[in-house]
C-alpha cells in the first residue's frame, strides 16, 4: 500500500504532474482492488425494501445472498463531512451498540461496506447490519386491526423498561425514545433501536455540571427539562419518553403532539400541571425557564385525562409516576419495573401468538391501513410525522409489516 506510505515524511522534490497523475491512477486501482480482511462487502446482502428514512439516513431490509432466509436491516452511515473522517456520531453509535448486548436492545451483527469505485469517488459507504425486526411499535399502533390485550401491553412496557434499565445501568442514554424506535420481532421480543443520538453519561465531574446538548429527542417525546434548556440531564429523559409510549399503547397516537417547543411545553402543562418551583424545585435555574411562556394555574390531571383510555388503575398510576415534571421525582426504570402494574393480574403475557396472526392478516390490509392512517393524520401535524418507513416499493409480492 503505497498511497499511505511515507505521507508524513517530508516531501521530496516536487513531482511532475504526469507522475502525480500516474500515482493517482495507481492509487485508485489499488483502492478498487483492495480486499479489507475484516470488512465484508455489502454485496453479500440483497436489498429488499427501504424500511426507514430519517435524519439518520436510510434503512433497508435485506437478505443474505448465500442464505436467503436470513434477513437483516441495513442502516447506511451518512458520510456528510468526509473531510473530517469517520463521522463521530456513527462512531458513538457503533461503540454503544457493541457495548450493549441484551435481549431488549437491537443487536448489531456486523458492519459492511461498498467497494470503492470511481462512481463513489473511491470512498466506500458503510452499512450497519442489524438483526431484522418485523414490526415497530408506531406501525403496530397505527394499525387499527392490531389489538393489544392488557397482558400484552404489560409485556411490551415491561420489555421496554427492561431495555432501559439495562442501557442505563451501562451508563448510556438513549435520547431518542419514541414509538418508531421501539422494534418488535414477530416472536414478540421488543428491541430498543436507533442509538444514533445515544451517548454515555456520567455523574458530574469535579462538581462541574455536564453540558450535553439539549437538542435531542423527538419533540413529542421530549421531556420538560430538555424543553427548558437543561444540559445536565440523565436517565429520566428516557423515562419520560417511556411514559409517552406507554400512554400511546392505549391512545394509539402520540399523546402530546406539539408543533414547537413552546407549544409542547403548553401541552405538557395541560396534562401534568403548571411548571413551578413548588412542584419542581430548582426549575427556575434552568436556562429557558424565564424565557419561555409557561402556563400558570394548570392542575395536574394525568390520571383524569388518561383514565378513559387506560381504564386499568394500576396502569394509570404507573403513567402518573412516569410523566412527572421534576426529573428527580420521575420513576427510574427499576422502580417502574417494581410497580404493581406488572405484578397484578392479568400478568404480562406472550405476544407471539397475537403477532403471528397479525402478520398474516396484514397482507391485504396494508394499503387500506395506509389510507386510514392518512385520514387520521388530521390528528398529527403532517409535516412532523415521525420517520416511519414507507415501504411503498412492493417487493416480491410480500408485504410484511415493516417500518
Amino acid at each position, binding site marked *: *500500500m503505497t*498511497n*499511505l*506510505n*511515507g*505521507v*508524513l*515524511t*517530508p*516531501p521530496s522534490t516536487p513531482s511532475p504532474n504526469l507522475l502525480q497523475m500516474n500515482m493517482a491512477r495507481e492509487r485508485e486501482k489499488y483502492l478498487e482492488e483492495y480486499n*479489507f*480482511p*475484516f*470488512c465484508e462487502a455489502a454485496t453479500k446482502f440483497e436489498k429488499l425494501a427501504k424500511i426507514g428514512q430519517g435524519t439518520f439516513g436510510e434503512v433497508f431490509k435485506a437478505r443474505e445472498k448465500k442464505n436467503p432466509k436470513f434477513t437483516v436491516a441495513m442502516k447506511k452511515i451518512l458520510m456528510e463531512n*468526509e*473531510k*473530517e*473522517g*469517520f463521522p*463521530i456520531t456513527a*462512531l458513538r453509535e*457503533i*461503540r454503544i451498540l*457493541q*457495548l450493549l448486548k441484551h435481549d431488549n436492545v437491537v443487536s448489531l451483527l456486523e*458492519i459492511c*461496506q461498498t467497494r470503492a469505485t470511481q462512481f463513489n469517488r473511491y470512498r*466506500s459507504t458503510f452499512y450497519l447490519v442489524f438483526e431484522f425486526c418485523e414490526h415497530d411499535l408506531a406501525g403496530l399502533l397505527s394499525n387499527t386491526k392490531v389489538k393489544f390485550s392488557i397482558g400484552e401491553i404489560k409485556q411490551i412496557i415491561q420489555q421496554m423498561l427492561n431495555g432501559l434499565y439495562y442501557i442505563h445501568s451501562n451508563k448510556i442514554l438513549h435520547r431518542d425514545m419514541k414509538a418508531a424506535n421501539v422494534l418488535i420481532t414477530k416472536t414478540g421480543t421488543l428491541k430498543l433501536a436507533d442509538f444514533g443520538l445515544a451517548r*454515555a453519561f456520567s455523574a458530574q*465531574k*469535579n462538581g462541574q455540571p455536564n453540558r450535553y446538548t439539549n437538542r435531542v429527542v423527538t419533540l413529542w417525546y421530549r421531556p420538560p427539562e430538555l424543553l427548558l434548556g437543561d444540559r445536565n440531564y440523565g436517565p429520566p429523559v428516557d423515562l419520560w419518553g417511556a411514559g409517552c409510549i406507554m400512554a400511546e399503547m392505549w391512545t394509539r397516537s402520540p399523546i402530546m403532539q406539539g408543533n414547537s417547543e413552546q407549544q409542547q411545553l403548553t401541552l405538557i402543562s395541560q396534562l401534568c400541571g403548571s411548571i413551578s418551583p413548588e412542584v419542581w424545585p430548582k426549575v427556575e435555574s434552568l436556562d429557558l425557564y424565564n424565557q419561555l411562556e409557561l402556563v400558570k394555574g394548570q392542575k395536574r390531571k394525568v390520571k383524569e385525562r388518561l383514565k378513559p383510555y387506560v381504564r386499568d388503575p394500576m396502569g394509570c398510576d404507573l403513567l402518573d409516576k412516569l410523566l412527572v415534571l421534576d426529573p428527580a421525582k420521575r420513576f427510574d426504570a427499576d422502580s417502574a419495573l417494581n410497580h404493581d402494574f406488572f405484578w397484578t393480574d392479568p400478568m404480562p403475557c406472550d405476544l407471539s401468538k397475537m403477532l403471528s396472526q397479525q402478520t398474516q392478516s396484514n397482507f391485504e390490509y396494508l394499503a387500506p391501513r395506509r389510507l386510514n392512517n392518512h385520514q387520521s393524520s388530521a390528528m398529527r401535524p403532517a409535516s412532523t410525522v415521525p420517520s416511519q418507513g414507507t415501504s411503498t416499493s412492493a417487493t416480491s409480492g410480500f408485504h410484511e409489516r415493516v417500518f
Partner: protein
Amino acid sequence: MGKKAPKMKSITKSKTKTHKQKVKSHKKNKNISKQKYRTKQRSESQDKLKKPEAPLTDYLTHKSNYIAVRFIFECGIKLGLKHITICSAAVYFHKFYKHVDETAYDNYSIASATLYLASKVQDETIRLRDLINVCYHTLHRDAAPLRLAEDYWNFRDSIVHAEMLIMRIVQFDTTFDHPHHYFLHYVQTLRPVFYSKHGKDIIVFKKAYDFLHDFYHSSDIFQFKAQHIAIACIELAIKVYGIPFQIIDYEIKFWYQALVEDLDKDTLWNVMAGIMDTYDFELTTN
C-alpha cells in the same frame, strides 16, 4: 478517570525524576516516558534536583512500533489530551499492527490517525489542523510550520484515509478495558494503609502509574486482564521502593487477593515480567 487527569499529567513527568534519585535499588526500571513534553513542566521542576534530560527522540531515524507509541504519547500530551485518550490511541495502534505487517504502512501516519480516532471516541475531538501541526513538528523538530498548501492537504487526506483503514482493520471495535479504572480504585483503597505509616505512598503510586503508561508501549498489554495489569503496576512499584512488610505481610495473604480474586502469584509475576520487558525495547533503540 477524567477527574484525575489534570493531576496526573504531572505524574508522568518531572517529579518522578527527582524521586528517582532517592531510589537506591532497582535502578533497572527506567522510565520510558521521560523525555516527553519537557517545556511545560520545566518551570515547576527547576527548584528540584536537576538530572540531565534525555535527548528528544529523533523519530525519523529509528522506526519501530515502540517508538511510534512514544510518538503517540508525545503528540497526545502536546495536544493536551486526556491520558485515557492517548492510551486508547496506543491500543488502536497495537490492534492495527496485530493484523498488519509492520512495514506495510507508515508508522507515523497510522499513529497520528489513531490519535485522531481516539480523540473522537473519547469525546475530546481535536481539530485535524492542530493534530497535523503537532505531528509534523514532532517529526521535523526544526522545520518551519507547514504551509496551507498541497503537503498539508495530503497529510490531511492521508490521516483521514488511515483512520478509515484503521477502523476496518480493528473491525470497528474501539472498546478496550483500560486498567486505569481499576488502578484508581485500588490506589484509593490502598492509600489509607500506606499513608498512615509512610510518606512515601504518593511516590509509589506515581511510579506505578508510570509503569502503567509505559506498558502501553508494548502490545503485550492485550495479553493480560486489566485488573491484573493494574495490580502488577502497583506491586512492581512497591517492590522498587521496598515497602517494608510490616505493612504488607506476604506470609499471611497476598494483599492484592483482597482486591482481585482471580490473581495468583505466577500470573502476577508474568504480568510484571511483561511490564519490565517493555523496557528492553528502549535499550534496543538507544
